[in-house]
Every structure is written in C-alpha cells, then in structure tokens.
C-alpha cells in the first residue's frame, strides 16, 4: 500500500515538473529514456548474439593478415579445396585478429562489468547506508571510513586495488565496486536520515516495530527510486573505468577482448591504423552515453527531488 502511494506521489511530482517546464521538455525526457534504452538494447543483443553475427574467434591470430584497413578481404582455402572470401569490416589488429569480432565480444565484458558493479555496489551501499542512517552509534565510524575512501580519487583507488592482486575479471569488478560504494552509502543514508523523522516511522516505533522490520518495511521502499537512478550512473561509470584500466594495461588480461584492451593494443600503431582505437571507442562511448541517458531520464521520471540531494 505504502509503495503504491509513494509511486503515485513520484508520478505526481513528475507531471508537475513537466507542466512547469513545458511539454517539449517532458517529451525530451521520455525521448532520452527511449533513445538510451534502444541503444543499450542493441548493444545487449549484439553482445549476446556475438557468435552468430558473422564473427570469427576473437582470439584467432592470422600472421599473414596483420594491420589491414577496414573492409579488407581475405580469401581462405577450405579443407575441401573451395575458397571462401572473408571480409574484415573493421580491419585487423597487429596480430591479424579481426577487430569486428573482438569489438562484438568486447561488448560482453563491458556489460558484465557494468551490471555486476552496479548490482554489487547498490547492494552493499544499501545495507551499509540503511544501518548507518538508522543506527546513530554506527554512523560516525562508518561515515569516517567512507569519507576516507572518497578522498582517494576513484580511478586512482581502482588502479591501486587492481595492483593488489593478479588482474582478472573478479579483481577488476571488486576494484571498481570499492570506490563506488561510499557514493551509494551517502545517498541511501541521506534518504534514511530524512525518512526516520517521518510521522509514520514514529508511529511504527510506537506500535513496537523492531528495528530490522522497520528498516525493511518502512525505510527501504523509499530508497528504491534514488537507488535505481544511482545504480544506472554507477553502471555507466563502471564501464568507463573498466575500459580505462584495460587501456592502461592494469585491467583484464590482454588475451580477453575488451574495448579497453583492443584500444591498448592499437596504441602503438595509432598514427597509421586508427581503426583499432576508433571502432571500440565509438562502441564504448555509445554504450556509456546510452546508460547515462537512461539514468537521466529515469531520475527525472522517478524522483525529481533527487537532483537537490545529489
């Protein structure tokens, strides 16, 4: 019941904002969700269907066919004597690997990292934020630790964390989660701090609700909308940071095709063969842009008040 009322309130806020800013802006909001969602859906489809979209093994090297420009064709003799023509739509890299295949498979890594980081940091941040916001004695200690973590610039902290253990998907995800958690904690805590003063929370306390019950039933639902929005932005930033780590050579091992790795590989010969950087770069930018647009739109639709809180 509570959740329904809340949603109605949020929608009411949304329509008020729309009426205030004019119909054009309301449309633009929805358009940003539509466009962002469409691009993202496309990337997801491409990532899932990568093996069936005319790709080859992304790790297959071809020493006789290195550094070809986009559109280069290669005639490959088959076992039965017939010849097939293969076109490298995005060219090949300095080991002769097909950039098109690598870019498509690279989408998988980026999406996995983005989604897992968003889910994990939202879950951890929610738990810590709820507890810190509600339990006064915990608040001081937790927030000092969070402040400390936040005073190390995110990418730097991630780089430091990655250096701690051998590079790999799990390390990278963890290294991106840790700098993101304090941001989620702050958001959740600020929501909890304002909710705990509400009369209905006081009423629940007066009725004898226990703290865990209180948090789950009355406080938690209020954090959902801002949390979803925040998780979207965390996802966008995680995709970017993963690409940056891989690009710098401290991220996911170079054998795995990721957008950052493809670009790192293309660095040396960039002046002559820019396609190694261009194609993954465009995919990366489009994906992050789509997630950001989605987040912007969601924020405006779900909770216009978040803007002030952030």
């Amino acid at each position: 019941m509570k959740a329904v009322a809340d949603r109605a309130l949020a929608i009411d806020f949304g329509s008020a904002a729309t009426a205030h800013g004019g119909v054009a802006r309301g449309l633009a909001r929805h358009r940003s969700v539509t466009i962002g969602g469409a691009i993202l859906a496309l990337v997801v489809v491409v990532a899932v269907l990568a093996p069936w979209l005319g790709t080859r093994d992304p790790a297959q090297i071809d020493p006789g066919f290195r550094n070809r420009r986009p559109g280069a064709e290669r005639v490959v003799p088959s076992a039965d004597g017939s010849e097939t023509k293969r076109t490298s739509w995005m060219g090949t890299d300095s080991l002769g690997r097909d950039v098109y295949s690598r870019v498509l498979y690279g989408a998988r890594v980026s999406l996995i990292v983005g989604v897992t980081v968003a889910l994990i940091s939202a879950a951890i941040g929610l738990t810590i934020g709820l507890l810190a916001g509600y339990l006064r004695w915990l608040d001081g200690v937790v927030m000092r630790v969070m402040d400390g973590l936040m005073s190390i610039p995110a990418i730097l902290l991630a780089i430091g964390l990655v250096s701690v253990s051998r590079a790999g998907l799990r390390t990278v995800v963890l290294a991106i989660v840790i700098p993101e958690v304090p941001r989620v904690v702050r958001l959740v805590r600020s929501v909890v701090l304002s909710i705990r003063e509400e009369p209905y929370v006081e009423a629940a306390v007066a009725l004898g609700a226990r703290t865990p019950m209180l948090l789950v039933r009355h406080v938690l639902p209020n954090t959902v909308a801002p949390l979803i929005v925040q998780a979207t932005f965390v996802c966008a930033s995680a995709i970017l940071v993963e690409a940056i780590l891989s690009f710098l050579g401290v991220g996911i091992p170079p054998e795995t095709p990721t957008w950052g790795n493809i670009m790192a590989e293309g660095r040396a010969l960039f002046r002559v063969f820019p396609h190694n950087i261009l194609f993954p770069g465009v995919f990366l930018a489009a994906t992050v842009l789509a997630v950001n647009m989605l987040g912007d739109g969601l924020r405006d639709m779900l909770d216009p008040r978040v803007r002030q809180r952030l």
Partner: protein
Amino acid sequence: MGVVAVVVFLLLRLTAGDPAAIIAGDNATTQQVEEIRGRLGLDRPIAQQFVIWLGNVLRGDFGESFFFKKQVADLILDRLEPTLALSIFTLVLAVTAAVPLGALAAYRRATWIDRAVMGLSVLGFSVPVFVIGYALIYLFAIHFAWLPVQGYQRLRDGIGGFLTHLILPSVTLAVIYVALIARITRASMLEVLNADHVRTARAKGLAELPVLLRHVLRNAAVPIVTVIGLGVALLIGGVVVTESVYSIPGLGRLTVDAVLARDYPTVQAVILLFSVVYVLINLVVDLTYTFLDPRIRY
C-alpha cells in the same frame, strides 16, 4: 586523512606479488631474496611496518623506489612539473569555458541552446578521456599537423614548445570537467533566476548582464565552486589517462608505471599525494564559501 593513510598502506601490502622477489630478479637464490626482504623491512610485523612508514612519510621521506632505484620524493619532484602544468591549464580552460556555457543554457532555458549545451554535457560524460585524446591527436596533430602529436617540453626549454605541447592534453582533459561544471552552473543558476531579488533588479531597470553577473551568478556560486573542487577527483583520474595517451612524463604516467612494476613505495606515495592534494583543495573550497556567501560562518 588517517584513514586514507591506513587504506593506502594496507591495500598495497596485502598483495600477491612479492617485491623482494621482483627486485632480486629471476636468478636470485632464496637467501638473496630473504636478505633484500630484511633490508626493505618487509620481514617485520605489518603494524610495525606501518608505523615506520608513517613516521617517514611525515618527514617527507617516502623511501626508495623498488623499481626506479631512486628516492621516491626525488622521483615525484622530477615528475611534478608536467602534471602541475597540465592540471592548471585544464582547470583554467574548463572553468572559463564551462561557467559561461552553463549560464547561457540557464538563461536561454528550454531553447535549442539549452538542449545543445546539456546534450554536449551528457556526451562529455560518456566519451572516455582516451577516445577524445586520440580523436584530437588524429584531427589536429596528424590530419592537419598543427600541433605536436605527443610528448612534453619543459618550461625552461622554451615557452612556445611548452604551450603547444599542452594544448591538446588540456583540451582532452577539460572535456569531462566542462561537462560537469556546465551542468551544475545551469542547475544552480536556474534556481536563482526565478528568485524575487532578480525580478527586483530587473524592475529597477538594471541591464541583463549586470543582473546575471551580480545577482544571479554570485548567488549561484556556492554549488559551482563546490563542484569545481569535487571535480578535481575527475581531473586526477583524467591526468593518469591523459598522460599515458600523450606520453607526458608526469605523475600520472609514474603511477601507471609503478603499478605495472609493483613498485609499492612509489604507488603509495603518489596515491597519498594525490589524495592529500584533493582533500586540501576541497578544504580551500570550503573556506571560500565565506567569501561567496557571508552568511556562511565556521
């Protein structure tokens, strides 16, 4: 700050790689590795290592780099100029570009100007620093050949080369920062634009520009300055990437090299240094509030 020190120290000590083994090289005997470990103090309890390290850091002694075989403090001083130059350039560039852009978007809200600025801002957030960097290099350094491709020239080797080498990296690094500041400027100014005192200022016949500068921007300044301070984190992260793209021998490049070489004293020192700078800048930002808004007191 204390938390930062502990975090930075622990992070880099709880590692899988053994620096003593790395220094000793592939052909070293176990005995040699042990000896090096003893010399570096790595065989002592971790709490003791931390206290020794903290004491040294407070005296400005970051120890000797495992990899570069130099004092870390010297190493940092050596790499300081490029990073400092790049950051200051970027900061000035970003603020002078972003504040007018954001103000314009707010003033012409809901027009194509507003939408263009906001659209570019979302784009600026989304395109990774190194993609922007390579796009700019390709366009201005290779295609048009107006500017040097990569590298850095020290100030004492001539100001012309110094400046031309800094243009592309600064623009690259400024993009995300501009996006951030322009957004906040717009949001913050929008809030003030509808305020009563702005209507009064207009009603008494003040021209638009003085209204915007004196009455709107001034009242909108606190969030803008806050974000400029917080954005330094983005700037620092960007420095690491930009210096790699443009082969600038600064602190960012040093960080990456040190991580790749598992050179803990250097990594610790650089991360600590960046964090201290970040915290100090935000402290200064907090102090400027009293100038911007005399109602705020500490």
